[in-house]
Each structure stands twice: as C-alpha cells, then as structure tokens.
C-alpha cells in the first residue's frame, strides 16, 4: 500500500460499521494526485484542472457507495481519471499534443527560464516525447504517486513488468536528458 493510501486510510476509519468519512480530507488528499496525474499525462496546467474537475465530479456523484470499501476509492478514482484522460485524447489529441509541445519547447526567454524552471520545462518536453503507454506509466508513478502494485492493477500488467518497464522508461528519459545537455 502506498504512503498516500495509508494516509487515506488514516482519514477514513475502516474499522467501524458506520463509517464517518471526512470527504473534505479525502478530497484534500486525492486532489494533488489526480491533478498531477493529468499534468504528467498531458503537460498542460489548465487542461489538468479541467480534467481533474471532471474526474472528481464523476467520482463524487457516486462516492457514497465506497463508504464500506474505501481502500478501493483511490483505485476507483484513478480508473475514472484514466477514462477521462482517454476520452480527452480521443477528441482533442492533436490540439493537446501541439499545445503541450509548444509550451514545453519555448523557454527561450531568459526571464521565463531560470534554471529550475528550465529543467522542469525540459523534463516536460521529454515526457511529451514518450509514447502514450510510457507516459501513462510515468504519470501514475510520479504524478499520482501510485506504487507498482497499484499501477499494475490499473493497467492490467504484472507488478514486475511495471517495475521493469518503468526502469526502461526512466533510462530512456535519462539518456535523452543527457543527450540534450550535451547538445547545449
């Protein structure tokens, strides 16, 4: 169980029959994870907000049924988030892709690209160069901070395969990163 889910369990008392759920606490806990999942996935802050809204609205309408099975809430929430992302890709693929690339490849102003931000922009650009499956894995791992077991469950992969694939993707990112640095 990830640290986030342990934390989630802390705000939700699973041991009682009549569970008193602090949904505000759940919201505060899950919002940054869902939001960052979309940021890593799509590379656009405003879009990440839109899709985060859509995810929570869908989840909130049916959240009551998770009162007795809140350990599954996070998993369920990210299933919704992934569906929302997939729907968006189907209808806006070219637009999103173009915007994201344009955004991340344009830190040419000295004032807009101080060192830390420039590095993050560079990372953003590299993420956008990954294929969809790779980006999904990275978004779940580093944006949503799911552990490999949770990612495996989301993607229907084995846990070891998730670990191996992530290792390969990070190596790829590292090589491209080093290559970019060397070119500069």
């Amino acid at each position: 169980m990830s640290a986030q889910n342990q934390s989630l369990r802390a705000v939700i008392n699973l041991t009682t029959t009549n569970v008193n759920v602090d949904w505000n606490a759940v919201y505060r806990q899950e919002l940054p994870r869902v939001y960052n999942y979309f940021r890593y996935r799509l590379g656009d802050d405003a879009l990440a907000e839109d899709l985060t809204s859509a995810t929570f609205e869908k989840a909130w309408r049916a959240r009551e049924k998770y009162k007795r099975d809140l350990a599954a809430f996070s998993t369920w929430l990210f299933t919704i988030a992934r569906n929302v992302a997939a729907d968006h890709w189907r209808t806006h693929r070219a637009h999103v892709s173009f915007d994201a690339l344009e955004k991340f490849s344009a830190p040419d102003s000295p004032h807009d690209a101080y060192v830390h931000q420039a590095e993050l922009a560079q990372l953003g650009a590299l993420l956008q160069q990954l294929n969809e499956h790779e980006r999904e894995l990275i978004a779940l791992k580093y944006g949503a901070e799911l552990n490999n077991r949770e990612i495996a469950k989301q993607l229907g992969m084995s846990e070891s395969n998730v670990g191996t694939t992530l290792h390969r993707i990070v190596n790829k990112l590292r090589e491209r990163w080093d290559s970019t640095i060397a070119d500069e």
Partner: protein
Amino acid sequence: MDDEFLKNYQQAPRPEFARQLQDKLNGGTNMLTTNNVAKQKTWRHNVMRWSPALIAATLVLALALVIALPPARALAQDFLNLFRVKKFAALTIDPARMKQLDNLDLDTEKLLADDVEILQKPGEPTQAASVQEASERAGFTVAVPAAHSNAAPSQILVQGAGAFVLTADTQKLQALLEIAGIHDAQVPAQLNGAKITVRKPAAVMLTYKLQRAKFTLMQSPSPEVELPQGVELKQLGEIGLRVLGLSQADAHNFAQNVDWSSTFLVPIPANVAEVRQVNVNGAEGLMINASATAQNRRSPYAEGDTLILWANNGMVYALQGSGAATDLLELASSVQ
C-alpha cells in the same frame, strides 16, 4: 535524473481551483464550470499581480506574497511594523503554526480598532503617467532598473503615505496571546498605555511587461516607527517570535541575536519557499522563491514567483518576477 527529480515536476493545484472545485462538489454556490477554469486562472494571475489590495500596501505587504494566511499575515505585519528597515532577515517557521493561526480566525484589525488612531489615510493607489510624475507625487526620486531605463513601465502606481498610532492595551494583548496558545509569555506591564506611532511613507510600484521580462518593482522610503522610551524592542520581538511558533528558548535566543531596531524579519513557512541571502549592490537582501522546494509541490503556495527584498540608503525595495533568479538579481542590482 532520479525518482526525486521526476517528482519535481509535480506542482500543487491552485488554491482557488481547489477551493472552487470543492465548493462545487459540496453543492455550494461558487460554481466553476470546466470551461472557464483557464479564464479563472488568467483572472487569478491578474489579481495576484495587479490587485489594488496588493498595491495599496507598502513594501511590508509584499511579504504577503509569501505569507498567504490572512490572520498570520496580519500578525506578521503588526509585529514587523515595529522595526525600522535597514536589512531583511528570514525566519523559517513551522507551516503547521501558520495554519493554527489561520484557524484562529483572528480579526486583529477589529480587535485593536479601539486602540488605533489613524493619523493619515494612504488612500487608494492611483496611476501616474510617468516615472517623473510618480517621483513628484511620492516625494522621492523613483529608481528604475538601468537595464530597462529606456522602457516605459506598463503601469505606474503611487500609494500615498499613511500613519497611525496604536495605544497598547496590555490586557487585550495578553488575551490575544492566550488565544494564540501562548500561555507562558507576559506582555510587559510598562507597555500599557504606550503610544506606538507607525508611519508608512508613500510607495511606488512599477510594472514592466516587456517582451523578455515581466516584473514589478516596488519601492518606498523605510517605514518609521516611533516607540516611547522604556518599550523594549527585544522583549516585544521575543513575544512576536512566540506567536510565530518558536519555543520559549528558541525565541529568547533568537531575540538576543537580532538587531531589532533595523531588521525586517520575514517569517516564511518552511514548506512554501526557498530563501537565500543575496547581495544587491552591496546591500544584504533576501531572495524568496515561492515554489522552488520539493516539499512545496503539495503545498497550496505553488507560485513560480521570486521576490527579492533589499534596503539601501533609507529606501526599501521589492522586486517580484517569474524569471531566472540570476536575471532578477542582476535586475535588482541595476536599480538606480
């Protein structure tokens, strides 16, 4: 590149977005449709940068960019205004303490209303047509960054001078300390009835929106505080430090080592900003980056802004921008 670096790409959702979405989920009236999130974002950035409330205050209020919790901000200002500003120093404080102060929901302005006499109202900030006009109205020569001396600011705002007298009521101040959870600090008895006069000179804010640089420079002569004899700044400072969450021992030790007559103490929650000392044309300054720390990615303070504070020749300056830290520092050093 490692796991930590990959996680650095995370950022906290905007507080306004988080709040509005929560309102919506809770069935509140403050609805936010998905289609206008981007507009809200733009609006919010404008507010952050151009809000009259932001402009209206002196440079002291620039610190509110970092200390976003209103009651804590008010406390910090009440506390900090007691000093003449010759240099800035950072004080890292526990964010949990800031949250505690926030939860108290103290309206210090209202609580102390009977004790405050306004001598001069600063009024609303008003636009000036030129730097020269701003200088004339503010009563000092407005400095500009030499690197952009030929560029006209996109906006020039002048905030008038203000002054007030606070008549200290030790009983009330003691009660405030109790409310703030400080039970082992005593407001000095000799403070009762003491009149503390705070004068905030006029301030000017220049905003530049150039093709390759967007920044705001605020400047003002140092605020002046007149304290009656017998009021121990060190003692008051120590109490202020307690309010900000320092232990009795830490507050005492810290208080002993600060030149309270000239140091503008900037309380900074540990998880919201990275702070470092910088040298601005020989003056000791602070550079505060509100989103540089890894811990900050989960905080509600995910601003990309950098704020440089420094004082020189009786003037205090604040330069706010989102560019490279080195460029901003160079810009600050060119202010003349």
